[in-house]
């Protein structure tokens, strides 16, 4: 199968970077957050991904803590893990901005440079490989949609199908 290796190696390696595989294997902030002020569930019926995101806002509307639980493919778990890493310490506004930026980047529908500049995407860029795999974009954005609805206080599970 040399042909396979030569041709398709890059895209796949780009999708499953070491950082992604690492977060998928050892997700950060995994588990329930008992004193969460906000929570939302995300379901991706396509692959059966199902996760719940927990956020604790402190008095000045900053994200003091975040975690998630659930199960899913490597992309959705790594994305959730990276998300929790990133949003702790952000203000609510910054968190919502990063929702807009990340989903925009991944779907290609929205590339608001201004926002982009204002927030340090850091490791989130590791998700960029998903853009070559349109059927997987929903896995990568699932946790972000859950973040968005958690903050907006929606209570029904959101689905990305």
């Amino acid at each position, binding site marked *: 199968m040399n042909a396979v290796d030569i*041709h*398709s190696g890059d*895209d*796949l390696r780009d999708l499953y970077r070491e950082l992604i595989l690492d977060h998928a294997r050892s997700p950060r902030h995994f588990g329930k957050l008992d004193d969460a002020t906000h929570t939302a569930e995300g379901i991706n019926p396509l*692959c059966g991904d199902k996760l719940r995101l927990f956020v604790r806002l402190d008095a000045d509307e900053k994200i003091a803590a975040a975690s998630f639980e659930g199960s899913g493919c490597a992309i959705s778990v790594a994305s959730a893990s990276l998300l929790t890493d990133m949003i702790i310490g952000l203000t609510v506004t910054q968190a919502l901005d990063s929702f807009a930026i990340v989903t925009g980047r991944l779907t290609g529908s929205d590339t608001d440079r201004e926002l982009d500049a204002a927030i340090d995407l850091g490791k989130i860029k590791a998700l960029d490989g998903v853009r070559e795999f349109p059927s*997987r974009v929903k896995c990568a954005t699932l946790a972000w949609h859950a973040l968005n609805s958690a903050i907006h206080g929606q209570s029904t599970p959101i689905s990305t199908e």
Partner: protein
Amino acid sequence: MTQLKKSDVRLDTECRPDFPALHQDISSHPLVYLDNAASAQQPSTVIDAVAYYQRHDHANVHRGVHTLSYRATEAYEGARDKIQSFINAAKRSEIVLTSGTTESINLVAQSFCRPRLAAGDKILITHLEHHSNIVPWQLLCEQTGAELVVAPINKSGELRTEAFDQLLTDDVRIVAIAHVSNALGTINPVKDIIAKAKSRNIAVLLDGAQSVPHMPVDVQDLGCDFYAFSAHKMFGPTGVGVLFGREAVLDAMPPYQGGGDMILEVSFDGTTYNDLPYKFEAGTPNISGVVGLGAAVDYLRSVGMTRIAQHEQQLLEYMTRRLEGIDGMRLIGTATEKASVQSFLVDDIHPHDLGTILDHQGVAIRTGHHCAMPVMDFYGVAGTARASLALYNNIEDVDRLIEAIAKARHIFG
């Protein structure tokens, strides 16, 4: 590498050229299509029959005196005859054309069962059913207060027949069971089940979505009351399916949907329904789809269902052996009697990731719950990867699958 005998079972060499969709590259690799249990590809004869119908013969059926309407009606009703003979139904009036297995089962739930169910009556299904053979019964139970009873399976994915026998009590009004499981490939012992149910006068519906494309089916020999299947799994178009029902049973049922064609006379004082099968075919049917299904039946008969079953059986054995040879492989669904489907998990690679990596090598499999979540729950998994075979698959396809899995293990390694 183990080889199949190259004798007359190499159906694929004969059939592959007939299927245009198979001859394309996906991610720069020749397509290996192993998602047949979800939907099969169509031979040119089907695609061309549909297009020819549209270009030359289309009009609405049944009520027209002009030539095109006559031709359309002949084509539509001619397909019904082909289906009748394909599954050996006694009468053409027993062949109800629907939009698919799902509608066929809903029709039985609503028209056959709903009017005669009382609270406490039971509907018996099994743990390995497709959602299409679960949710219609759940809706019906909500509507009537009937109870859904689920016969258990064992770790191999086989029906536990002694438990089934105990659940088959006199308050069961219908047994609805897959002939072949789409998630596990299990062939259920349907003849036994029908015999037991019949001895208690209990109606039986078989979900034949996964059997009709893969083995000879004779509804008279089976003796079931209803048999449901979909054209798109048997190399025909989407949006068409069949409900076989025994005439006496269909006759006693009220219509399912109301509309044109299912009536003899409509007035505001009262409406009389049409004869079978038209009573159950309200509205303009999927004429071109039915024409395509007729062509698919012709195709299957020209190849021969027994040869197809043999070919797929040998290929399934080969595939199972090759999969077993992979480290970290967990096969889901290991019944003794199986057809054309193998579900599996490798290491702790999520099936969805596996699916992406395989697709990137041109190998199309399905991943997820396969519309059989209770099966997934039973095995304690969120989903599986599933490779499912059809008459055009071959050893090379299986070899490509195996190599692609190796690559996935390497990436996740």
